């Protein structure tokens, strides 16, 4: 089914394998269940887009990709394989769209108008996502959508399979101490006011707060320092990636090791593992891996103390599906390319792809 999926994807663009992890310990061996994960999109309306130096990458490619998902879904269904698509949060970017931060109990007209503007500007994309029956996750940039009835069905977390969960899906900001501790109003203000000045390729958001506190908000606004702190590091380093040959599609034939490009970037791996352990403790489950986005750094990170490929003790995998904003670069590449990543999961095998089209 992975191969069949690539048949559809390679019709419309170049596909690069960013990371692959195959392990029975994922405990996800259902042969009739194929899952696709779409990471951060940060959609805003067309007028607001003009004010930003970075925005959702290649919407034309994204739309064509969704069309191929629909085609694949039909083909998979003919083989009794069920396909589910998830959007992992930061679907709409309300922090960039709307200049006011909402308190938890406020559902203002401004929120509805902001969301509506984005929906009207991106209606083709949104319509296709809904046609796919996409399961949406709340991100930090679009968390306030829970106030709007039209976004019913969006959730903070999913667990699957239903009978006894071995995996969770969530945005990922819950693992960030910075996200938890920085006031929403400051984050919203920073992204909305300073964001238009930020170029891709900038420093860690974690330093932003210190800078603003040091300078004071007014002075920080006038200084150039803030530009360096809004966006997470880009281009995201994907390390080694492999272009999928559309005539072969078979990446098992020596082009990549069985477990390919398992990342040394372990951000949130510990926190995600602790989260899984707490949930396991509460419900008597056995969560083995989690799927997130939020970081805009596509990778698979694995905690495997035994290293023998069998021992379950302490095993946990984190599948970070990247994003569709900013740039990425890999070993051997001269220039970065726009980030356009997705995650897929089938039969104990998780993969992350980077898509590219001129």
């Amino acid at each position, binding site marked *: 089914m992975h191969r069949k999926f690539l048949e559809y994807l390679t019709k419309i663009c170049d596909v690069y394998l960013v990371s692959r992890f195959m392990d029975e310990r994922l405990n996800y061996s259902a042969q009739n269940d194929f899952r696709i994960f779409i990471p951060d999109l940060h959609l805003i309306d067309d007028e607001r887009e003009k004010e930003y130096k970075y925005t959702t990458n290649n919407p034309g490619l994204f739309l064509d990709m969704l069309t191929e998902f629909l085609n694949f879904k039909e083909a998979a269904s003919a083989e009794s394989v069920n396909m589910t698509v998830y959007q992992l949060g930061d679907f709409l970017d309300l922090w960039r769209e709307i200049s006011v931060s909402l308190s938890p109990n406020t559902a203002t007209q401004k929120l509805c108008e902001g969301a509506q503007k984005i929906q009207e500007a991106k209606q083709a994309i949104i319509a296709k996502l809904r046609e796919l029956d996409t399961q949406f996750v709340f991100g930090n940039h679009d968390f306030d959508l829970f106030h709007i009835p039209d976004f*019913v069905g969006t959730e903070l977390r999913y667990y699957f399979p*239903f009978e006894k969960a071995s995996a969770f899906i969530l945005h990922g900001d819950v693992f960030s101490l910075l996200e938890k501790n920085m006031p929403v109003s400051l984050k919203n203000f920073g992204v909305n006011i300073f964001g238009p000045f930020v170029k891709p390729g900038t420093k860690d958001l974690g330093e932003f707060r210190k800078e603003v506190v040091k300078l004071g908000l007014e002075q920080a606004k006038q200084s150039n320092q803030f530009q360096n702190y809004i966006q997470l590091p880009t281009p995201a380093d994907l390390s080694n990636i492999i272009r999928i040959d559309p005539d072969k599609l078979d990446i098992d034939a020596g082009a990549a090791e069985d477990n390919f490009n398992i990342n040394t970037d372990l951000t949130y791996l510990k926190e995600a593992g602790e989260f899984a352990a707490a949930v396991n403790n509460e419900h008597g489950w056995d969560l083995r891996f989690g799927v997130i986005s939020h970081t805009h750094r596509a990778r698979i990170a694995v905690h495997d103390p035994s290293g023998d490929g069998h021992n379950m003790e302490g095993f946990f995998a984190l599948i970070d599906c990247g994003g569709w904003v900013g740039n990425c670069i890999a070993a051997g590449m001269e220039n970065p390319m726009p980030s356009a990543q997705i995650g897929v999961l089938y039969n104990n095998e998780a993969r992350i792809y980077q898509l590219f089209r001129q």
Partner: protein
Amino acid sequence: MNRQFISLKHRCIVFMLLVVFLYPACRPKTVPFAVVREADFRVGPVDLPLNDEGKKTIEDFLLKGGDNRRSDLVDPGAPKAYADLFVLLSDSAFLRRSMFRKEGEIGKISKPLEQWFEKSIVYSLIDSQNKRPLIITPISLADKNGKYWWVFYMPQPPGNLEKDPKIIRVLVTVTPAKDIDRY
């Protein structure tokens, strides 16, 4: 002492107090109402007293976070959280309108239900599945988690109309949340 100055100052104070106290009273208000949502976001009506099948139907809906299209779990704590409510809804003796209300107070729920529901009973229900509003108004209770309305139905005319009618069916439907625990 300048009498005119003091008088003006006092007039201003009185005016401000009037504005502060009268403004909330003058703002338009709406009667609270419950809404039965689209088919994907409701379950039921399920017959009461609740049997095993009915309990599983509601439980699966809650496990999926109130979305019937879904095959994943969203709220794994739901069975435990509502276990005692399901026991109550399986008990014929409890399933009377009077048992749902606080004694002497038509607008407040009884103590056994306070664990799951907000205190006020809502008697206005919008349900476009029906041709017109029901004659015997259902009792709609807002779930304390802010996510659901639980709508409890009684027999409608020309059925046997008792002074204290039985509660014979329940429907659970999603409502826009007021707040969500984010972290």
